[in-house]
């Protein structure tokens, strides 16, 4: 039983390491600030989740597990706010995102067309 918990815990932590490294690698490989944010979000969602779950298994049923859950919740709720603030700041600085396709106008027009028909 103990062995199974140890194996599961270390597997999760190694998975966390893997996704953190992937996020870092993506940060280097991506061409501009917006695409880099996408790469970083792998680290602070799946990476953090795997780490916290792995550490929870190490801690067992104790207050430490509850505190780890609070850390997870903190990442979960502050992550998108920070990402959104960063994206807004970039747009305010007029950093134009590298785009393969800009569907903003098309999506708006398409919807207006749909509403006019119905």
């Amino acid at each position, binding site marked *: 039983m103990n062995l199974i918990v140890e194996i599961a815990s270390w597997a999760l932590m190694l998975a966390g390491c893997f996704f953190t490294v*992937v*996020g870092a*690698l993506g940060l280097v490989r991506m*061409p501009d600030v917006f695409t880099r944010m996408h790469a970083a979000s792998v680290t602070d969602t799946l990476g953090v989740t795997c780490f916290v779950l792995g550490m929870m298994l190490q801690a067992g049923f104790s207050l430490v597990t509850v505190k780890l859950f609070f850390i997870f919740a903190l990442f979960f709720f502050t992550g998108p706010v920070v990402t959104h603030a960063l994206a807004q700041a970039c747009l305010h600085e007029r950093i134009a995102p590298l785009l393969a*396709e800009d*569907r*903003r106008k098309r*999506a708006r027009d398409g919807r207006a067309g749909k509403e006019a028909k119905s």
Partner: protein
Amino acid sequence: MRYASLAFFLFVFWIALSGHYTPTLVTVGAVCAVLCVLAAIRMRTADEEGHPSQLFGGAVTYLPWLLGEIAKSAWAVTRVVLDPALPISPTMTVVRASQKTRVGVNVYANSITLTPGTITVGVEGNDLVVHALVREGALDLEDGGMDRRVSRFEGQA
């Protein structure tokens, strides 16, 4: 009811952080929780936005679903990053948030940002400006599957 729920959560938070169960400290914790609720009421933050207790029932099924979506799209982004050709096609689009309350729109916008591969970069009323790493991500959001799921979550309240 909302105030009672807020006080309860603050009290549980206190207990979990302190780890001491002596009568004195538990009483102090209860008093602190009540004082914090009073302060929150005075700051007008103990409303349906500051402590959205109306959503807690729906969150039991919504959060696991969201975690599943996060895992799926994180895996997709991982494959893009590890692909030697780096097959990205950054796309900007606008999606409609059909939620009725500000809390609902907020949940939708933050859910989009939390799933790797899509970021909400702007909110204009009920229109969300979204940046997606690959074109398929933008098209998925335009289909509105997640929008409907969030609306259902909001409506359960």
